[in-house]
């Protein structure tokens, strides 16, 4: 029976319930009065005459028929293993399996943790004594800039993203993430870019304007070397890698869950990663735009942040902190998600207040966007405005409180075994609660006026970040080690590591509260004796080195016991309940389970054996390729089978060339940079060419009478979802740009031209016409494709390209006419940036249109196989909409004022 995937199949919640999930098997339904917990499971009894499995829900047992009969055909399992096997030897670097990329990713991120930690030790050594001259100001300034930057951009965000890549597919019962090569690309870009960026330190070329890079200090007048360009370009493109990962995670969590894993059964870690990825989509664009603007100012003197020219340094602070504050929660939420996975496993009981924790995660995700001015309390912003942010900061404390009490309640309900993961979780609770309380303190405006930019704040955010994220990370490393390694880490060494890190942390950072209250500012390379700071600093230094010893103990443990293996991993040593503890291999799980509860391994007796025996869905490879099951976003009903790519060089090489493009550009090697850029794009096209395979395989039976197509287009396809998320990113960048325009207008209205000084109306009118025509042509091409009118499609697309390029050209030329130049003023700079974005989209769309037409010529595009065209079309319409808004703003707003 065909399982149609259209979105409309999902029933609205107003109807008060899900339609029988597996309506495909309705003929076999025997409505039996099974016990009610977990509610609604009765429908799962609807599977044919297959073997029955017991669903243990604690007090009741429910039997359920399984989709696939035993014995499995010979060779099925071997074939599955064969298909998912990564390359061996050194070619392992071309692997794209999420477990391999995830592991590389976690290890690389941890390497950056160690490197940035060494920088911290150097700083602590310098600050051990007053007036110490171990390290001079230039080096010290590079050290603290790099420490912050590396910890935030190269460790904290990547490591949680990496944990997501590593764990999510197994946790969700998927075989892999929906875009394995995108993960590989994101990882390698980060790996190469990150290492080169770090090495700038060895040449004295590291940025030195702080991780927050405030202009004018970071702009060309006060930082003339290429140091700060390294930050802007290096970090700028690592942000792009983070966004690639976020897209992957959103689509993965929403669309690759095991059947039956409805939103209320989603593991908390997956919820946390979903919120994390959603936050990246809206927060990172602000800093991407900010870095773009600052680089334009540094390279071409477009004065966005120069007050004398109608710019404003505060614009940077708004954009940076609009990213920077959510960033803290971006780092913290996944860590909280890990804790919510570890606590039930360690206490042997279900999480108390699951729904409240979901509320907390989503609530924080939103409210944290209302806190950015929190970092700007001392900039002289109107008192009432500050108070709004103070209130929002208080509101964000509620969800954090909910989580803390939920964990305590869970511990009270079960029996906590004091393993190393438990110890790190308890350490996290202790430290994070303190950090949260000082967080409330710094949210109080007058108090913040005193402690802002002092060591009190250093103490606060290390309590929140180290306590809130590094402790859970260590807990997670110990907890999930049996998932990736043949052996567990040692309990004995683990206790030492915990003890040293916990004691060292508090010895290092607790005194800093006092140091700050005694008036010691941050970011000072030295301090005079006699202000009461001397002993406290010495204590902090001792603590910092104690942490280092603890980390070394961990590394010894790691070296002794880490034996990576997915097939022969140590397995479910904790007797945990979530799906990643199913027996697994490179193929993830043998068969894809039906999930009936939040802790499937506890709720469904014999689940592991049944999954391993292949009794559940898709026990082999149905098409002879790598594949994963795509399910509907809310109810998790099977929709179609997504075929996944195997290992290959293009993602890796393309990532290397992308990194080279940005880094060469930093060094002002324009020609080599361009060559690398072209190579990167060429390799991407090579890799994309094999995607969008079309419905070239008959729908496959995944078991239980469920037949799903192997291809889907439109709103149900994963590529459509990815493109929509990408468009949200683009829209967020554009919104930040509109904010910049209006912000500069409020602070420097004098820069806005009189109506007479604007370009003549004919320019925007012609541009509008061209844009509308190009969009119409694309719509026409879409209809042509539906009707299989091949030539009409090709001609429409090829005509649309010059139109959108010409629209950009007209607009740029029009602005030049009254004599406006980008370097003239903040106004001019922001207007030209808006138009330049239009040009950027025109360029990208030209490539995409030519690519789409080329596929049409090769017969790779038809009325069914149209995902490639759909993506081009979506972005096209978005770009036109953005351009029209730009035109309306740039030409309409000054006229409205005049």
């Amino acid at each position, binding site marked *: 029976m065909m399982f149609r995937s259209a*979105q*409309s199949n*999902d*029933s*609205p*919640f*107003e109807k*008060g*319930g*899900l339609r029988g999930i597996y309506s495909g098997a309705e003929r076999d339904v025997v409505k039996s009065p099974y016990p*009610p917990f*977990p*509610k*609604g499971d009765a429908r799962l009894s609807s599977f044919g005459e297959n073997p029955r499995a017991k669903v243990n829900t604690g007090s009741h047992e429910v039997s359920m028929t399984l989709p696939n009969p035993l014995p499995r055909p010979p060779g099925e399992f071997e074939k599955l293993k064969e298909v998912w096997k990564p390359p061996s030897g050194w070619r392992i670097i071309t692997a794209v399996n999420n477990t391999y990329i995830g592991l590389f990713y976690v290890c690389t991120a941890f390497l950056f943790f160690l490197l940035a930690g060494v920088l911290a030790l150097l700083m602590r050594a310098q600050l051990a004594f007053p007036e110490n001259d171990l390290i001079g100001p230039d080096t010290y300034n590079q050290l603290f800039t790099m420490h912050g930057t590396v910890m935030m951009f190269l460790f904290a965000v990547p490591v949680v993203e990496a944990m997501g890549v590593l764990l999510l597919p197994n946790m969700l019962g998927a075989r892999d993430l929906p875009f394995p090569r995108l993960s590989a690309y994101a990882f390698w870009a980060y790996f190469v870019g990150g290492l080169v960026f770090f090495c700038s330190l060895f040449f004295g070329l590291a940025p030195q304007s702080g991780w927050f890079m405030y202009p004018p200090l970071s702009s060309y007048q006060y930082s003339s070397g290429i140091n700060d360009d390294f930050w802007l370009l290096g970090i700028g493109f690592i942000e792009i890698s983070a966004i690639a990962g976020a897209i992957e995670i959103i689509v993965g969590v929403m669309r690759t869950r095991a059947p039956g894993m*409805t*939103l*209320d*059964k989603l593991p908390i870690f997956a919820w946390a990663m979903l919120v994390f990825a959603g936050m990246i989509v809206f927060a990172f664009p602000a800093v991407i735009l900010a870095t773009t603007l600052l680089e334009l100012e540094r390279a071409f003197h477009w004065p966005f942040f120069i007050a004398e020219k109608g710019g404003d340094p505060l614009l940077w602070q708004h954009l940076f902190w609009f990213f920077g504050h959510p960033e803290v929660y971006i780092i913290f939420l996944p860590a909280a998600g890990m804790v919510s996975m570890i606590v039930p496993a360690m206490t042997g009981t279900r999480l108390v207040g699951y*729904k*409240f924790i*979901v*509320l907390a995660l*989503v*609530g924080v*995700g*939103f*409210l944290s*966007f*209302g806190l950015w001015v929190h970092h700007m309390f001392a900039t002289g*912003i*109107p*008192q*009432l*405005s500050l*108070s*709004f942010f*103070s*209130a*929002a900061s*208080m*509101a964000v404390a*509620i*969800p954090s409180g909910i989580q803390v009490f939920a964990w305590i309640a869970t511990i009270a309900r079960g029996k906590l075994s004091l393993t190393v993961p438990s110890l790190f979780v308890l350490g996290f609770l202790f430290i994070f609660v303190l950090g949260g309380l000082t967080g409330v303190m710094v949210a109080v405006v007058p108090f913040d006026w005193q402690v802002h930019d002092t060591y009190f704040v250093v103490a606060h955010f290390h309590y929140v970040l180290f306590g809130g994220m590094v402790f859970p990370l260590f807990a997670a490393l110990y907890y999930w080690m049996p998932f990736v390694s043949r052996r567990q880490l040692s309990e004995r060494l683990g206790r030492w590591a915990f003890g040293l890190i916990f004691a060292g942390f508090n010895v290092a950072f607790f005194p800093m509260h006092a140091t700050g209250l005694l008036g010691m500012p941050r970011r000072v390379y030295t301090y005079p004796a006699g202000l009461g700071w001397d002993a406290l600093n010495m204590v902090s230094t001792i603590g910092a080195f104690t942490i280092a010893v603890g980390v070394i103990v961990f590394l010894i443990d790691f070296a002794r016991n880490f034996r990576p293996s997915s097939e022969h991993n140590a397995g479910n040593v904790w007797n945990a309940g979530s799906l990643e503890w199913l027996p697994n291999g490179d193929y993830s799980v043998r068969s894809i389970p039906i999930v009936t509860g939040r802790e499937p391994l506890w709720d469904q007796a014999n689940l592991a054996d049944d999954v391993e025996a292949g009794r559940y869905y898709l026990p082999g490879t149905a098409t002879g390729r790598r594949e994963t099951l795509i399910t*509907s*976003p*809310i*109810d998790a009903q099977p929709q179609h089978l997504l075929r996944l790519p195997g290992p290959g060089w293009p993602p890796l090489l393309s990532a290397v060339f992308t990194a080279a493009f940005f880094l060469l550009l930093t060094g002002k090697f324009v020609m080599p940079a361009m060559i690398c850029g072209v190579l990167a794009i060429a390799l991407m096209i090579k890799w994309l060419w094999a995607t969008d395979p079309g419905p070239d395989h008959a729908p496959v039976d995944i078991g239980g009478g469920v037949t799903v197509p192997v291809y889907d287009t439109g*709103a149900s396809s994963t590529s459509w979802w990815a493109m929509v998320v990408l468009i949200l990113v683009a829209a967020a960048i554009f919104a930040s740009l509109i904010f910049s325009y209006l912000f500069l207008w*409020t*602070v420097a209205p004098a820069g806005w031209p009189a109506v007479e000084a604007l370009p003549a109306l004919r320019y925007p009118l012609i541009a509008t016409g061209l844009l509308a025509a190009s969009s119409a042509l694309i719509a026409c091409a879409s209809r042509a494709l539906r009707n299989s009118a091949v030539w009409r499609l090709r001609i429409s697309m090829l005509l649309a390209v010059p139109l959108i390029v010409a629209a950009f050209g007209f607009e740029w030329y029009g602005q030049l006419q009254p004599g406006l130049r980008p370097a003239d003023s903040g106004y001019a700079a922001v207007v030209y940036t808006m138009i330049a974005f239009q040009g950027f989209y025109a360029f990208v769309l030209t490539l995409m249109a030519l690519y789409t037409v080329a596929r049409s010529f090769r017969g790779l595009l038809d009325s069914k196989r149209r995902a490639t065209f759909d993506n081009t079309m979506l972005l096209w319409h978005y770009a036109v909409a953005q351009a029209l808004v730009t035109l309306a703003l740039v030409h309409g707003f000054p006229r409205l004022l005049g």
Partner: protein
Amino acid sequence: MALSHFTRAGLGMLCGPVIWGVHFLAIYVFTAMACARRPFNPDWVAAVPGMVFAMTLLATAALLATIVPAIRANKRSRDDASGFIPWATAAFAALALVAVIWETLPVLLVPICE
């Protein structure tokens, strides 16, 4: 095209936080502009409290309009799975309501542009 289940459920769940976001941006942007324009146009500053209260009333009404039906839907639902989305819709909106009310407090207590 009718909205899909996903779109409706998603929009429903995010109603609360989005209303909060709009309210927050509105009061922040209006206050910032009023204070920035004070030298040219002092009337704006006088309008700030009224504007903030009006926005808060609107937001509160919208949030209640989200919460009440969601609670009803949750009560009607037969099981955890179908009750989850209405529960989340109501809870997110309730949290948003707290934030909206807290953000209105300072208008009563704090000088506007100092």
